[in-house]
């Protein structure tokens, strides 16, 4: 105590004065009324009540056109196999996603029924709370082995699979390079991730390389706020400093077989680019597993590349495998993360065991001889249909880039003022001749880059050349009748 008081006496005057001023300033700050931005205008209760009484909300939903086709759907009775009963009429089915003909397959149905007799229908809980049955674990093992990957994660809804997987890894501040033509589920995943999304033109590897190069240059530049000419495919926060770049994850998201255009991604070039620029590569193989490749293992087998080039592969059980649900496969490092962070996995009830058992039977079919035959049939009919559509169709055309291997064929109207209306009428007329086809439906206002209207043909291994020729002749009849 004494040395302190001595020090006070011995200190120079200016020192003491400064200290005293400091103490006074601190006290002033402590007792001053803090500035709160909310205090700008204080309304009286009467004024508030007036504002509340004046406020008039919009109606909850806008009025809907009573003749909208969604309000008058075509009712399907019975199974959606090669022949489907639509509104009471038996039609040749070119609209159901059933590429290997597994809807109605007896083995699949028997497996589902047997599972139902043991587990009931619902799983009654999310995976974390007694909703995990051994059927789910077996199916995950089966998928992982089939795809030659370490681990698989099963989701109960195909839409939720990729839409939950992307935001589990990509957060605010990360950069995602995505193809323009990605499907709606991926777009919702991109929205949920809050990352910076940079779209590149569909399958245009030069454009992608340009964007990657400019991003790489920006990463090396010190300091932010660099302005440059931005086109609609770039985002202003592209430019950052190297320190930030070292913690910014970069992703590349493509579809193997695009639902919206029926073509295949240029996988070798994509893998080269992702290696060069160190991107995490996510591939959405919803349509390609069970379709592409000699044994149906997807786009990597199709291009003879190792599946380890992808960080994450998302697949679906709904399009090809005659069941419902989706899955993600990859290395354990990547996939295991979703068991805690995939929203659609943690907070949703698990897939009903009977659907999982059906999917297991489908995978067994795929690995059997009958499955390999079905794959061959599918490949043949897809290629045949591709060339027949190009040769014989009159007022409809395929896109130049559509792949002959794709079971999804988009037929666009040639030079029409109102293609959507025209195509809807074609569909109606074709249905009267007992063929069921659909136009591809989109939510125009919600899609980021809405595709052009088209008729979407879904081929299957049970279709033969006569069916396709019959379809073409009926389509030609309908389009010529409507054009006059």
């Amino acid at each position: 105590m004494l040395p302190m008081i001595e020090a006070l006496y011995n200190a120079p005057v200016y020192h003491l004065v400064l200290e005293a001023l400091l103490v006074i300033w601190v006290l002033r700050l402590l007792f001053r009324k803090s500035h709160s931005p909310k205090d700008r205008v204080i309304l009286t209760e009467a004024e508030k009540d007036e504002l509340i009484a004046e406020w008039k909300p919009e109606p909850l939903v806008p009025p809907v056109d009573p003749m909208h086709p969604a309000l008058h759907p075509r009712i399907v009775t019975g199974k959606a196999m090669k022949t489907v009963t639509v509104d009471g009429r038996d039609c040749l089915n070119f609209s159901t996603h059933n590429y290997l003909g597994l809807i109605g397959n007896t083995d699949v149905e028997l497996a589902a029924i047997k599972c139902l007799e043991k587990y009931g229908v619902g799983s009654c809980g999310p995976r974390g709370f007694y909703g995990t049955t051994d059927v789910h674990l077996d199916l995950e093992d089966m998928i992982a082995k089939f795809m030659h990957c370490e681990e698989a994660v099963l989701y109960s809804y195909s839409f939720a699979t990729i839409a939950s997987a992307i935001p589990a890894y990509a957060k605010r501040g990360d950069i995602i390079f995505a193809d323009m033509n990605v499907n709606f589920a991926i777009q919702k995943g991109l929205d949920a991730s809050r990352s910076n999304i940079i779209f590149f033109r569909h399958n245009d590897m030069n454009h992608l390389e340009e964007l990657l190069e400019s991003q790489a240059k920006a990463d090396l530049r010190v300091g932010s706020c660099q302005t440059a000419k931005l086109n609609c495919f770039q985002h202003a926060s592209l430019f950052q400093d190297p320190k930030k770049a070292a913690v910014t994850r970069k992703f590349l998201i493509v579809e193997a077989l695009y639902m919206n255009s029926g073509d295949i991604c240029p996988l070798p070039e994509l893998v080269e680019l992702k290696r060069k620029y160190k991107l995490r590569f996510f591939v959405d193989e919803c349509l390609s597993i069970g379709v592409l490749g000699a044994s149906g293992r997807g786009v990597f087998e199709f291009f003879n590349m190792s599946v380890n080039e992808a960080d994450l592969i998302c697949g679906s059980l709904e399009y090809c495998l005659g069941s419902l649900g989706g899955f993600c496969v990859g290395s354990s490092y990547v996939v295991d993360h979703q068991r805690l962070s995939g929203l659609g996995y943690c907070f949703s009830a698990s897939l009903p065991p009977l659907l999982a058992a059906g999917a297991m039977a489908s995978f067994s079919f795929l690995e059997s001889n009958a499955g390999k035959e079905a794959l061959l049939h599918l490949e043949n009919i897809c290629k045949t249909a591709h060339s027949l559509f190009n040769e014989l169709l009159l007022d409809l055309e395929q896109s130049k880039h559509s792949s002959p291997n794709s079971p999804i064929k988009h037929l666009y109207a040639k030079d029409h003022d109102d293609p959507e209306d025209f195509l809807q009428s074609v569909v109606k007329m074709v249905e009267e001749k007992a063929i069921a086809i659909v136009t591809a439906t989109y939510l125009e206002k919600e899609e980021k880059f809405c595709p052009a209207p088209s008729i979407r043909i879904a081929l299957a291994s049970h279709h033969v050349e006569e069916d396709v020729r019959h379809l073409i002749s009926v389509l030609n009849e309908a389009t010529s009748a409507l054009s006059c």
Partner: protein
Amino acid sequence: MGMSNGLKNGYSPEYMGMKTDKNHNWKELHNYEESRAHVSIVTVFLTYLSYIILCLLGYASEWLAKFGLLRNGLNVDPRFGENYVPLYFNNWESIFARHIYRRGREYCSRPICSVPGAMCTLKDRYTPDNGWNFQFTGTQTKCVNFGSYNYLGFAENRGPCCDSAKGAIRKEGLTLGSATRELGSGRAVEELESLVAEYLGLEDAIVFGMGFATNSLNLPALVGKGSLIISDQWNHSSLILGARLSGAAIHVFQHNNMASLEKVIRDAIVQGQPRTKRPWKKILIVVEGIYSMEGTIVNLPSIIRLKNKYKAYLYLDEAHSIGAIGPRGRGITDYFGIDPREVDIMMGTFTKSFGSAGGYIAGKRSIIDHLRVRSHASTYACSMSPPVAQQVIAAMSIIMGKDGTHEGIKRIRALAENSRYLRRNLMRMGFIIFGHDDSPIIPLLLFQPAKIPWFARCMTEYNVAVVAVGFPATPVVESRARFCVSAGHTKEMLDQVLSAIAEVGDRLLIKYAKNQVRSKLDCDPDYDCE
């Protein structure tokens, strides 16, 4: 005491004006508030201390592993050494997952190999390396199942529901393979939609294949930029995701607190949109019927009064309350005796009370028509599976009595009796139980993180399967065990659980409210249970 009909459950029309005294259930709400307040500061302190110790151990373990002094079962990045930006960083979230959650992981995601009914068979597994990996022992344990959502006991593998689901597989296959707006409208889904509308007493309904997707894909179709969503503090993550995806602004009010809700609404209308100050296009209040972690029942009469006063819209998520509450099993509106048309949008799922999967939204025809046209799920996602839809049709018909029996009413009454019996007895034993008397979800507070797996392990020794959860599903301090009562539980099973919990409770020192119970019994001899 058994079930009460309509008004005798305590809610009378006066309740809408919130009179407090004679109301049996209003007293319950106060009781719930009180039990929160009487936790001793020592318990809270010890809980925080436990978490701090676990965190420090986690950081130490990471540090040691970095220098190779400690081996752990972490997965290695296959691109390690190739100059990629790491996919996960060493932040709090990953430390938590790897070192705190991992220690108790054995009792999470437990696989079963039977129907998830009132009894279930657990496939035993053990961890040779402290939670990093698991292996099956080869044995199975039959347990009383208090973990699955099976309120009315429809999780069965035989009976009329199963037979009709089997018939649907044979007649209509496992899937229609098409989106609803394309060629995915089947007979089963059409029948289900009209049955759901009839069940709820509303004009129309639309169904989807996944309950989570029902919320996350339809909220964006209902509100957009320029609108406001006012959501409860403890809303489910599907509602939060749907609200975020919609682009609307989100304000949060305190859980089930009507004063907080009114303040939020008033402030929102008076202030308008942030920055531009324009008036909001519309305000949507989003609440749940029964909250799955709290076991509380939403205060629907007050919310409806508020929504009518301020011209807001109401979205009610009845995931846990449809079928599980109300004298006829029609949910929250049935429980309070409110006309279901007062609620603008009623959403629910089929997973919990109907033993199936999927979700629905019901309301006025104009709203459902709008969703048929604008919903993301009906445009892009495959329609519901026919056997799954058929199971719901069969279960709902039984509840409505359409099969000519009284099975439905019997199940509803059994569920109500079971919930009340279990809850009252647990409270009497001195546990802190959250939630309202009539809710079939019974959360029992554990507090310390180590008690979460410990409780689950002890209960498994007594052949009872329960769910024990901690952070982040619940607030940090309030880890809990949750009992989901089912109509399929018999009195013997409930007594088995009660005797097991009594012993486990003494062993784990979780009877935090024992002293308060003793004092209550002293001054109110009527405080007793059936």
